[in-house]
C-alpha cells in the first residue's frame, strides 16, 4: 500500500455501506414539506372524480338518475356500470383470480361499494353532484357472518357465479364458498391427535382490521390523445404489475402505459391492490382527454379498500404429557367479503398461512382454509405482514399458550422444549416450507434474561395473592412470543401474481466521474430505500453511498419488478442490487487488469479498488476504473460500466424474533398499561441498524393498535361501525409505550448478503405478544381464550365474566 492510501477501515467507513447507521437521504425534502405525493400533483385542466357509494350492504340497484347532478355547473360526466359495460370495464379481475365490480352492476354487495363516478371541475362540485345522484335500491337480506353465509338457505351473494362450482382455486361447495385450500397430512394428523396424551382445542379469531396508512389511496390518470400514451401517477406498491394489469384489461398496449408511484405516504399492504377508483379515473381521462384525479377520503379508505385479517382459526394441538408437541390441526374460516380481492401469490389463496407451525418442531400437521363470501368490503391484504403470516403467528402463539394451560406448564419452558434446534436447519416443516436458518434457543434465552423472566413470574404470583387479599385491583400479564416469519416472495417456480413471476430487479449505471444511479423494481413507502439500497451497493462496488442515486417507481425507467410488500424488497430487490453490483465489479476487474497490465486473475478487490496481488502499491480505484470505461478502448471489453440483474430467489427468507410484553391491567376499568416491551429481532445481516430499529418501533405500534383496539366492525345490517379515526383506533404518542429493541444475527444462507427483511416482523410478533399479555394476566383466574381487540370494554367484560367484580 503506498503512503497516500488511507487504511482499509477508513476507506470502508467512507463508503457508508452495510451496517452503517446512515442518516436518510429522503429526509431533506420530507422535513421541508417538499415531498411529492399523489394529491400534491396538479396538471392543467385536471378534473376531480368522486364516488356515489352504497348505503346498503346488500341491495338491488333499481335505477340511477344523474339528471340533477349533470345540471350542476362544473359537472362534466357521471359514469355508471352501463357506461363501462361497452368497454368491458364494469368488472375487473382481482389479484386472487376472482372478479370485482368496478361500478355496481345490478346490485351492491357491501356498504360503501362504488355505484357511480362523478367527474367535475373541482372536488367541491364533485361532492355536490354525488349528493344529487338519485339511486333507487331494493334491500336484500344481509349476511356478515361467514358461518351463517354457509347455511343452505343463506342469501346468494354472487349471482354472477351462480351455477359455476369451479373457482379459481378448485371446486366450490356452496354458493357463498370461494375455495378450500389444504396442506399437510390429514389422516396422519387425525391419528396423532386421536392417540395423544394431551390435546388442547380452541377457536382463535383474528378480527378484521385495516392498514390505514396516513395517506389514503389515489391516482391521477392522464390520457394523452396526441401520442396515445396513458400516464397514471398513483399510490401503487407494485407499479409494474399495475401497468401489466392496466394493459390487459384496457387493451392499451403496455408500452403506451406509464405508471409512476411518486412519494407514498405509507402503504402497509393497502396500496397493493387495484381499486375501482383507478379504473374509473383512467376511463374518465380517456373520455375527457384531460387528467383526472381520484383520491379517496378516510371514510372511503376504511370502508372500501383493502381490509386485513378476519380469520376464524380453529385449532387442535397435541402433545405428550411432558410437553413435546406431536401434532397440529387447523381449520380456518376466512371471511373475504364480497369479492376475493386478496393480494397473495396466485397459487396461495390463503397466502403463506401454512407457516402456522411457527418456530416449533411439529412433526405432523394438517391445515384447511375455506374462503367465504359475505356482505363486507373486499380485501384480505397483508397489513404489514407477508401474506397471512401474522394470522399464522397469532394462531400458533395462542395455541402454545392454550396448550401450556392444559399441561399446567410454564409457557416459556414449553416453547424452549419445542423450538426447532439450530442443527435442524435447513428445516423442512410439516406444512411444506424449508426454513433457511435460525437459532431460536439463543434468541429466546437472551430475551428471557433481558426481561428477568423468573423474577417477573415471581412478582406476578405475588400480585395474584395480593389481589385475592383485596390489596390491589391491578393484575400483571407477561406476554410471550417467539415468531417465525416467511418473507421475500418469492421463487418464480411457485410464486407469481397473475402469472408474473415474483423476481425483482436492479439496474446500475456508473457515471464517468465515478458516481452512480441504480434503479429498482420496488418502491419505498417510508422504508428508506434510497438510503439502504445505496448502502448495499456501496459495499459491493466501492463507491460511497453518498455518490449513488436510487430511483424507483417509474415504469418507463425502472427495470421490471413486482414491487414492495410482504417484506420482499430486501430479500429480493436487495439481492438483485448485490448481484448487479457484482457484475459491475467483475467488469471493473477486467478494466483494472488491463490498466495495470496484468492478467485478470492477478488483481484482487480491496474495499474500493483493485490491487495487484503482492504489489499493493499498484492499484486502480473504482473512480479511475469508471473513467477508463468511458475513455479507453479496451480490447474485448464494451465501453461503459452498467449492469442489470433480475433476481429469482432460490427460497424465501425466515426472519424470527422473541418479543415479551409486560402489561398492567386494571380489573375495574379494563385499562391497560404497557410497563415493558422487549423486542429481539433476527433479520439476518443488518444493513442500517437505525432504519431497522425504526421499522421495529413502527411495526410494534401497529401491532399495539391491532391487539388493543383497532377493528373494522360491522353490525348485523352490514353497516360499518368504525369508519373514521374517531372509532378506528390509532395510538397517539400518549398511549404508545417505550420499546427496548435487541437483536441476534443469523444470516440467510442463500441471500447474497445474508439479509432477511424486517419491516413486518414487529407486526407479526407484536400482536401475539400484546394479546398473550392480556390472556396471561387472567390465566390464574381461568381465562383460556378471548377475542381481540382487547379494548377497555372487552377487558372489563373478561374480568366481569370471570367473576372478578365481586
Amino acid at each position, binding site marked *: 500500500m503506498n503512503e497516500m492510501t488511507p487504511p482499509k477501515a477508513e476507506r470502508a467507513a467512507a463508503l457508508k455501506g452495510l451496517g452503517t447507521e446512515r*442518516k*436518510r437521504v*429522503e*429526509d*431533506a*425534502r*420530507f*422535513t*421541508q*414539506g*417538499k*415531498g411529492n*405525493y399523489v*394529491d*400534491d400533483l*396538479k396538471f392543467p385542466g385536471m378534473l376531480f372524480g368522486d364516488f356515489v357509494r352504497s348505503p346498503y350492504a346488500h341491495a338491488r340497484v333499481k335505477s340511477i338518475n344523474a339528471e340533477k347532478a349533470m345540471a350542476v355547473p362544473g359537472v362534466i360526466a357521471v359514469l355508471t356500470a352501463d357506461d363501462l359495460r361497452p368497454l368491458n370495464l364494469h368488472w375487473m379481475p382481482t389479484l386472487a383470480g376472482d372478479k370485482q365490480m368496478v361500478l355496481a352492476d345490478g346490485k351492491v354487495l357491501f356498504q360503501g361499494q362504488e355505484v357511480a363516478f362523478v367527474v367535475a371541475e*373541482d*372536488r*367541491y362540485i364533485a361532492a355536490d353532484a354525488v349528493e344529487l345522484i338519485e339511486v333507487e335500491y331494493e334491500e336484500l337480506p344481509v349476511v356478515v357472518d361467514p358461518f351463517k353465509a354457509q347455511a343452505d338457505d343463506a342469501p346468494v351473494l354472487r349471482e354472477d357465479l351462480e351455477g359455476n362450482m369451479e373457482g379459481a382455486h378448485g371446486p366450490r361447495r356452496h354458493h357463498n364458498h370461494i375455495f378450500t385450500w389444504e396442506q399437510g397430512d390429514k389422516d396422519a394428523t387425525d391419528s396423532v391427535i386421536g392417540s395423544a396424551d394431551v390435546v388442547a382445542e380452541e377457536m382463535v379469531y383474528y378480527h378484521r382490521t385495516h392498514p*390505514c*396508512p*396516513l*395517506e*389514503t389511496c389515489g391516482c391521477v390518470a392522464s390520457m394523452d390523445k396526441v401520442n396515445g400514451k396513458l400516464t397514471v401517477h398513483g399510490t401503487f406498491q407494485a407499479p409494474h404489475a399495475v401497468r401489466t394489469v392496466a394493459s390487459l384489461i384496457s387493451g392499451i398496449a403496455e408500452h403506451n402505459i406509464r405508471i409512476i408511484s411518486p*412519494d*407514498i*405516504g*405509507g402503504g*402497509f399492504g393497502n396500496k397493493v391492490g387495484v381499486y375501482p377508483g383507478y379504473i374509473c379515473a383512467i376511463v374518465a381521462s380517456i373520455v375527457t382527454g384531460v387528467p383526472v384525479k381520484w383520491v379517496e*377520503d*378516510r*371514510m372511503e379508505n376504511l370502508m372500501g379498500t383493502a381490509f386485513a385479517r378476519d380469520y376464524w382459526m380453529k385449532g387442535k394441538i397435541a402433545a405428550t404429557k411432558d410437553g413435546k408437541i406431536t401434532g397440529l390441526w387447523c381449520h380456518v374460516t376466512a371471511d373475504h367479503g364480497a369479492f376475493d380481492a386478496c393480494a397473495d401469490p396466485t397459487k396461495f389463496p390463503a397466502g403463506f398461512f401454512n407457516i402456522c407451525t411457527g418456530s416449533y418442531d411439529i412433526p405432523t400437521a394438517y391445515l384447511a382454509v375455506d374462503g367465504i363470501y359475505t356482505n363486507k368490503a373486499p380485501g384480505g391484504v397483508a397489513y404489514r405482514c407477508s401474506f397471512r403470516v401474522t394470522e399464522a403467528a397469532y394462531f400458533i402463539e395462542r395455541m402454545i399458550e392454550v396448550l401450556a394451560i392444559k399441561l399446567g406448564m410454564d409457557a416459556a419452558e414449553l416453547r424452549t422444549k419445542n423450538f426447532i434446534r439450530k442443527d435442524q436447519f435447513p428445516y423442512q416443516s410439516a406444512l411444506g416450507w424449508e426454513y433457511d436458518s435460525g437459532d431460536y434457543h439463543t434468541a429466546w434465552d437472551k430475551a428471557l434474561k433481558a426481561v428477568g423472566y423468573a423474577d417477573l413470574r415471581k412478582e406476578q404470583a405475588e400480585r395474584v395473592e395480593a389481589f385475592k387479599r383485596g390489596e390491589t385491583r391491578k393484575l400483571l400479564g407477561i406476554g410471550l412470543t417467539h415468531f417465525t416469519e416467511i418473507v421475500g416472495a418469492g421463487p418464480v417456480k411457485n410464486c407469481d401474481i397473475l402469472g408474473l413471476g415474483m423476481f425483482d430487479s436492479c439496474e446500475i449505471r456508473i457515471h464517468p466521474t465515478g458516481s452512480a444511479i441504480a434503479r429498482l423494481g420496488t418502491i419505498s*413507502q*417510508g*422504508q*428508506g430505500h434510497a438510503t439502504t439500497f445505496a448502502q448495499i451497493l456501496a459495499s459491493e462496488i466501492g463507491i460511497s453511498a453518498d455518490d449513488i442515486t436510487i430511483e424507483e417507481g417509474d415504469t418507463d425507467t425502472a427495470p421490471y419488478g413486482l414491487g414492495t410488500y410482504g417484506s420482499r424488497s430486501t430479500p429480493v430487490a436487495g439481492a438483485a442490487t448485490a448481484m448487479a453490483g457484482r457484475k459491475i465489479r467483475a467488469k471493473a476487474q477486467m478494466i483494472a487488469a488491463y490498466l495495470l497490465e496484468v492478467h485478470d486473475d492477478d488483481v484482487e478487490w480491496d474495499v474500493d479498488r483493485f490491487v495487484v496481488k503482492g504489489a499493493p502499491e499498484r492499484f486502480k480505484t473504482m473512480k479511475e476504473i469508471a473513467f477508463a470505461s468511458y475513455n479507453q478502448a479496451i480490447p474485448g471489453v464494451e465501453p461503459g460500466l452498467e449492469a442489470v440483474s433480475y433476481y429469482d430467489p432460490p427460497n424465501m427468507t425466515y426472519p424470527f424474533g422473541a418479543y415479551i410484553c409486560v402489561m398492567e391491567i386494571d380489573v375495574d376499568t379494563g385499562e391497560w398499561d404497557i410497563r415493558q416491551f422487549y423486542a429481539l429481532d433476527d433479520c439476518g445481516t443488518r444493513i442500517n441498524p*437505525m*432504519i431497522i*430499529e*425504526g421499522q421495529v*418501533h*413502527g*411495526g*410494534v*405500534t*401497529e401491532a399495539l393498535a391491532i391487539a388493543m383496539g383497532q377493528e373494522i366492525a360491522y353490525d348485523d345490517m352490514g353497516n360499518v361501525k368504525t369508519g*373514521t*379515526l*374517531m372509532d378506528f383506533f*390509532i395510538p*397517539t*404518542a*400518549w398511549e*404508545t409505550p*417505550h*420499546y427496548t429493541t435487541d437483536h441476534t444475527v443469523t444470516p440467510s444462507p442463500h441471500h447474497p448478503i445474508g439479509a432477511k427483511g424486517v419491516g413486518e416482523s414487529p407486526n407479526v410478533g407484536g400482536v401475539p405478544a400484546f394479546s398473550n399479555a392480556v390472556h396471561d394476566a387472567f390465566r390464574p383466574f381461568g381465562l383460556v381464550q378471548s377475542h381481540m381487540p382487547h379494548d377497555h370494554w372487552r377487558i372489563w367484560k373478561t374480568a366481569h365474566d370471570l367473576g372478578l367484580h365481586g
Partner: protein
Amino acid sequence: MSKVHIKLTVNGKQEELLAEPRELLIHVLRERLGVTGPHIGCETSHCGACTVDMDGKSVKSCTVFAAQANGAEITTIEGLGNPDGLHVLQQMFKEHHGLQCGFCTPGMITRAYRFLQENPDPSEEDVRFGMAGNLCRCTGYQNIVKAILAAAAELNAAKEAAQ
C-alpha cells in the same frame, strides 16, 4: 355560491383571494396557493397531518374555513426553515430518524414548533401529551419524541448562549 374576499399572510407572503364560504383552509393552501406541505389524512381533525400555525396557535386546517383565516398569519412547514438552513426541529427529525414515509412530518414538525413555544422545557411526558393531536403510522413516535426533546435542548442551549 357567493364568494368571500379573504386576505391572509402565508409564510410571510400576502395573499388575497375569493373563496366559497364552505372552502376549507387546507384546500385553499394546497390547491389555490400551491402550499402542499400540509397534508390531508382524515378530514375529521384526528390525524393532524394538516396542522398549520395560525396567529400563534396550532390549528388543523382541514376543520378551519378559509374565511375564518381572513386577516390571519399562517405558517406552514414551508415557512419554518430559512435561507440559511433548516429549522432545528427539521434537523433533529432527520438526525434522530423521526420520520419514515414523511406524510405526517409537516404537521408533526409544525405542531412541535408551536408546542416548544408553549412549553420550552418539556418533559418527555409533556411532549407525548402535547403531540397527541398528531398521528404517525410509521415511527411509533419513539424517535419523534426524541427529536423534539433534542430540539428543545438545542434551542435552550442557543438561548443561554445568546444571553
